[in-house]
């Protein structure tokens, strides 16, 4: 959707600059005159919220790195030094630690919004896959960041996750020792994780730019899932409409975020991580951070080392194939009565897997994990391909403008309708 810019540089200097580097025009066409579907709801502000959270994490992280030292014998003490000695260090660390959780809350809402409104379907497959890549980079970044305080959960989390690679036949052990830089998680591991933890957010920022580029090239999806037919009737300019709506969404999200920072800063954390890393004693009940729990449940549900690891990685990888697994031409769940129900079942299953991941791997929890893990894959590999063939979608609105007018009780503009051939 480039080329919508009405930007005319005002003044001699602006014109001189624009003819040499048209960056102001680029910003104007992407963030001011860019046409956004007029039916976007608040679920569509999470892209902006996520961009803000990436900024918050990079900013607070760079500042924390000024006070931190990645050296196994002192890293735990350095984090306590930040908490006790550094001016506002407690605030900076709580922003960063809770910011990671907030980032994942926002990304899960963003992903489920995409699932509900079919945002991954043509022509948005590349946009979706870039999103999956960002999600993977986020998981890697968060995991390595959690290792840096060098507490018990840091150490044993790093041990368990890196040991996943030991499941690879023949070369597994070699790969794990290569990851560690030793024969166990230790100072070399901590150092490389710190370097990578600093690097990856900037790679995320790069992929985010591609993600937004792809989004603005094909145009945003919307709650009705029909394409923009007329820029004049179906869209409003990004500024002020989307800008103000996004800022409002960000402020509300910041209120939620602030409650955690100032009132329950350790709610998302684990008390064992306030015990310095001890390579001789594993905590009795070891769990990853909450945002990894569904995948952790899938890992533990398979009674085979390699199988469990493969299942866990497949659970993420399957998302990348979603545009081709979902055979329905209709995007939005609003017009897919059956998919809508399966969507909510899937959402409950995903949350259920998260709950099971937090419970000890024994008795009924194991059986429940196996059932939900099976359903997770059945949803993507069987239900979605078949649903497109058997489901009878509701009639789609002729245009976004028609959908908006119909929902708000006004008369549908006659003659604007064109037969819908492809959602």
């Amino acid at each position, binding site marked *: 959707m480039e080329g919508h810019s009405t930007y005319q540089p005002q003044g001699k200097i602006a014109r001189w600059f624009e003819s040499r580097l048209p960056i102001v025009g680029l910003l104007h066409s992407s963030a001011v005159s860019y046409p956004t579907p007029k039916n976007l709801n608040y679920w569509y502000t999470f892209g902006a919220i996520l961009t803000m959270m990436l900024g918050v994490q990079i*900013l607070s992280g760079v*500042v924390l790195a*000024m*006070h931190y030292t990645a050296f196994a014998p002192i890293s735990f003490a350095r984090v306590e*030094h930040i908490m*006790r*000695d*550094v*001016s*506002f*260090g407690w*605030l*900076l660390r709580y922003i960063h630690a809770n910011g990671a959780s907030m980032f994942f809350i926002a990304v899960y809402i963003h992903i489920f919004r995409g699932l509900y409104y079919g945002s991954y379907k043509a022509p948005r497959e590349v946009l979706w896959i870039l999103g999956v890549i960002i999600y993977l980079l986020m998981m890697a970044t968060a995991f390595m960041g959690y290792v840096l305080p060098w507490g018990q959960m840091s150490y044993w989390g790093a041990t368990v996750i890196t040991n996943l690679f030991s499941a690879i036949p023949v070369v597994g052990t070699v790969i794990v020792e290569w990851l560690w830089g030793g024969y166990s998680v230790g100072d070399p591991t901590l150092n490389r994780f710190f370097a990578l933890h600093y690097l990856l957010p900037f790679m995320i920022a790069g992929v985010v730019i591609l993600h937004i580029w792809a989004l603005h090239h094909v145009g945003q999806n919307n709650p009705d899932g029909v394409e923009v037919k007329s820029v004049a009737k179906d869209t409003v300019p990004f500024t002020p409409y989307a800008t103000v709506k996004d800022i409002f969404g960000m402020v509300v999200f910041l209120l939620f975020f602030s409650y955690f920072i100032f009132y329950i800063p350790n709610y998302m954390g684990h008390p064992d991580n306030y015990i310095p890393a001890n390579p001789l004693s594993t905590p009795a009940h070891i769990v990853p951070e909450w945002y990894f729990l569904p995948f952790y449940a899938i890992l533990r549900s398979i009674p085979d080392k390699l199988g469990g690891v493969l299942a866990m990685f497949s659970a993420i990888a399957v998302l990348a194939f979603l545009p081709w697994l979902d055979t329905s031409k209709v995007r939005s769940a609003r017009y897919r009565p059956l998919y809508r129900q399966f969507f909510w079942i899937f959402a409950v299953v995903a949350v259920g897997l998260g709950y099971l991941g937090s419970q000890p791997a024994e008795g009924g929890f194991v059986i429940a994990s196996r059932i939900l893990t099976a359903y997770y894959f059945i949803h993507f590999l069987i239900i979605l391909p078949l649903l497109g063939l058997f489901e009878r979608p509701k009639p789609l609105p002729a245009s976004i403008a028609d959908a908006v007018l119909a929902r708000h009780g006004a008369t549908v503009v006659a003659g604007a309708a064109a037969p819908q051939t492809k959602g």
Partner: protein
Amino acid sequence: MAHTETSGTNRRDFLYIATGAVGAVGVAGMIWPFVSQLQPDASVLALSTTEVDLSPIQEGQIVTFMWRGKPIFVFNRLAKDVELARAVPLNQLIDPQTDQDRVKAGHDKWLVVIGICTHLGCVPLGHQGNYDGWFCPCHGSQYDSSGRVRVGPAPLNLAVPPYNFVSDSKIVIG
């Protein structure tokens, strides 16, 4: 909002400005911790005073101590060093100051100065130069037995840190 009667100003303008003002205060409040964290932290401030025992320092000896990451010269001056410093007319000095102003009354033989050349921050060498004091190897500045600059390019005397005698043989710097 002095001109509330102007036809172009309405409720919406007020809300717009009020929202912007609250937002600006919030942003400023959030910027402050990010600026403040760069200040010396509590562990650095905890080291801001240093106790020095003078008893092992021999007459004529200069001993260097650390205070806030800087060298402190403690000079146990001989009687001739003090006499020499006090005999100099003030108008011959680059940065005129009497020797009495640079030491604690009653402890005239003890000179305590920050050992950083006032030119560009090097550490001068003791018992060198032509004035019974210090010579800076970086750019050739010379200081006398009172730590006063006698040959440039340094513009100022060696600074005297805040310190007090807690007993005849013990000082607290800072």
